[in-house]
């Protein structure tokens, strides 16, 4: 599996990721992203729907009665801002969801209005733009440039806005754009769904592909999916950092998916994933999580009586910034890893000798 994706596959991935990155889905209003996600899964699943919480859920049935359920999940929400007030002059007060406030001045956003219209707007500069101190959010405004009466007609308190800017290829096989956290991982899941269908493999479990909402505020979307399906396995696909100088060096852009060890990741499952990667010669990295992974797995593992989780990451640079950078090849490799892992994994693996009270992971 050391071959690079073909040019044709790369172009297809770029198109799909462009659609996902450009779809609107700030935490709290993920409907645009859900529509794209549903469309991507539809050809490869027996059934796909958007549930009451707004989560996209696609299923490939095993045909086995009372089959266990394995969920492969990526969140479809993204960081952004929300309109909190409108001044007489038509400027918008706003609050942020998961942003570094240094990014705000001069940043162009795209507001999604009640009618589904997208309106561009820019954040004003601090009063002394040359000061090195980062201005407080409360001194900045979002400006659509439109005359006040038009603003008041079209924009309302509560409207969300996402970073503007279309996805582009920054270097060979590398892409740059907003919301790759975590739409890129959703694309890995869609790649898995496609490869599963193509392979014709029969799996011992019903496979659920989920694109969940509201991960950036704690993961109630994923919790709802888990509570509803009670899976025996939940694998969270979420991006990880590859900033230069960050201490974790078991992962890099273009180095393949990074398998999380520890924390919310069940040791048996993550080892099985790691062995699959080695056996199938899929490039990969590893990284250790001593406590919380900061992914949907953290919420899901304590859903119901507790659900066995694992975390697989796709490396990403400049997380939560308007211009996240990653490798298309890593996205494809992650999909390939999921296919082979799901084909090999036995649901009772590691459960023998399991006694109530044997905690998983750290924390005790």
């Amino acid at each position, binding site marked *: 599996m050391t071959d690079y994706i073909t040019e044709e596959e790369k172009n297809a991935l770029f198109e799909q990721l462009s659609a996902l990155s450009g779809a609107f889905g700030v935490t709290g209003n993920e409907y645009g992203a859900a529509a794209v996600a549903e469309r991507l899964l539809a050809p490869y699943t027996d059934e796909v729907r958007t549930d009451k919480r707004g989560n996209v859920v696609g299923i490939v049935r095993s045909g086995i009665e009372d089959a266990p359920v394995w969920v492969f999940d990526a969140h479809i929400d993204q960081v952004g801002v929300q309109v909190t007030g409108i*001044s*007489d*002059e038509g*400027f918008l007060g706003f609050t942020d969801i*998961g*942003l*570094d*406030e*240094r*990014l705000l*001045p*001069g*940043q*162009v956003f795209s507001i999604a209005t009640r009618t589904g219209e997208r*309106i*561009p707007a*820019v954040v*004003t*500069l*601090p009063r002394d*733009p*040359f*000061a*090195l*101190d*980062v*201005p407080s959010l409360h001194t900045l*405004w979002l*400006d*659509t*440039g*439109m*005359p006040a009466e*038009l603003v008041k007609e*079209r924009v309302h308190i509560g409207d969300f806005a996402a970073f*503007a*800017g279309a996805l*582009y290829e*920054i*270097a060979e096989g*590398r892409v*740059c754009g907003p919301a790759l956290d975590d739409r890129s991982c959703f694309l890995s899941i869609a790649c898995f769904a496609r490869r599963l269908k193509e392979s014709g493999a029969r799996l011992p479990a019903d496979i659920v592909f989920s694109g969940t909402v509201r991960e950036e505020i704690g993961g109630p979307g994923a919790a709802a999916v888990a509570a509803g399906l009670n899976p025996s396995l939940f694998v969270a696909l979420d991006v990880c*950092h590859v*900033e*230069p100088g*960050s201490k974790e060096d078991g992962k890099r*852009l273009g180095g393949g998916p990074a398998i999380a060890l520890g924390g919310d990741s069940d040791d048996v499952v993550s080892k099985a994933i790691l062995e699959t990667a080695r056996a199938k010669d899929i490039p990969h990295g590893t990284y250790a999580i001593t406590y919380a992974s*900061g992914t949907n797995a953290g919420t899901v593992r304590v859903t119901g009586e507790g659900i066995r989780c694992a975390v697989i990451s796709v490396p990403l*640079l*400049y*997380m*939560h*910034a*308007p*211009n996240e*950078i990653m490798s298309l090849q890593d996205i494809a490799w992650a999909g390939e890893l999921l296919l082979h892992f799901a084909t090999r994994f036995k649901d009772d693996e590691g459960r023998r000798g399991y006694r109530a009270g044997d905690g998983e992971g750290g924390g005790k």
Partner: protein
Amino acid sequence: MTDSGEKLIALLKTLSELSGVSNFEDEVREYIRDFTAGSAAEIRETDLGGLLVLKKGRKSPKQPIVLAAGMDEAGFLVKGIESDGKLRIEAVDEAFPPSVLFGKRLKLARNGLRGVVPAKAIHLTTREERGKYPETDKLLMDISRDSDKDAEKVARVGDPVVLDAEFFELAGGRVAGKAFETRIPCSQLLTLFERELPYDTWFAFTTRTLIGSSGTTSAGRMLKPGAAVSVSVVQALDLPGVSAHERGAALGEGAGIAIRDRYAFSDRAFAREAAAAHARFFSSDVISARLYGFLEGAPQAKLLEVDTPVRHLRTPFETAALSDIESGVDLLETVVACAGEILERAPESGDETLTGTEPADGPGGKAGEGDE
């Protein structure tokens, strides 16, 4: 929207999206040369890369009339290449405040290759880091190359870098994009160029206006004008909470005549006469100093600065009202007529050599305000 409005938007979009850091204005110059070639009576290129275009009018003025707009935009130069493949870049003349650059998109003008100013993930930052912008003299551009060797294949020291910014046509007759500071004036001159003019007029498209005003000075020396008009923009700080003292101008209130730029004053009589119709007066101290360029290069000329309000200057989303841009074109047409008439009335050899240093006292003007 009128046909002329649509034409103006298309023109401004094209100009805004061209790359032309000071001293690298070639793309803009060639576009303007093509645009004007058909109906120009004469086109001269200055040694500094500027373009001087003569359009015949109904009459010939006693001395040349020149309208000047800059072609350059605020940007950066590649200063070096790091071993990890990032480009070290330097803003040309403190072009942008650090708060505007963090995490933004940039473009190598030579090959259109795009990159970003690194913005480390918030999860990895310390409280101190989140409270301060990195110093602009440590600016980097990430083009996602993994080594200096890879980066050197696409970037060289000295390459110009511009903001990578899309042009937006907004609702309510507003537009947004980059480089409006000079490209709105260029669009106004080109729109006026297509009209029938009362007098022969030189249209000067000048270089390096944002790093001093050598291009404007050079145009002044070559044309020896009797009337020289600098066309630029005025900062619109019409934001909530900004006092009337500070706001400068407001979108939608029309283009106007600047009483002064940072170093030079509009000619008092010229300003009063040109503004007679309805034009507004500004006291403009925007970053650039183009009128000063004429003070240096054409001290004999009657000087005038015509400005259009622009909000969020030096960002990827500079914002302007189409009605203001159009009113600027109309004002410039009036200015050409006034200039011709003033020159007809003026004695053969100008004795009013102080015109460039005397404050105008138009409506709202601040007579007696000290120079700097």
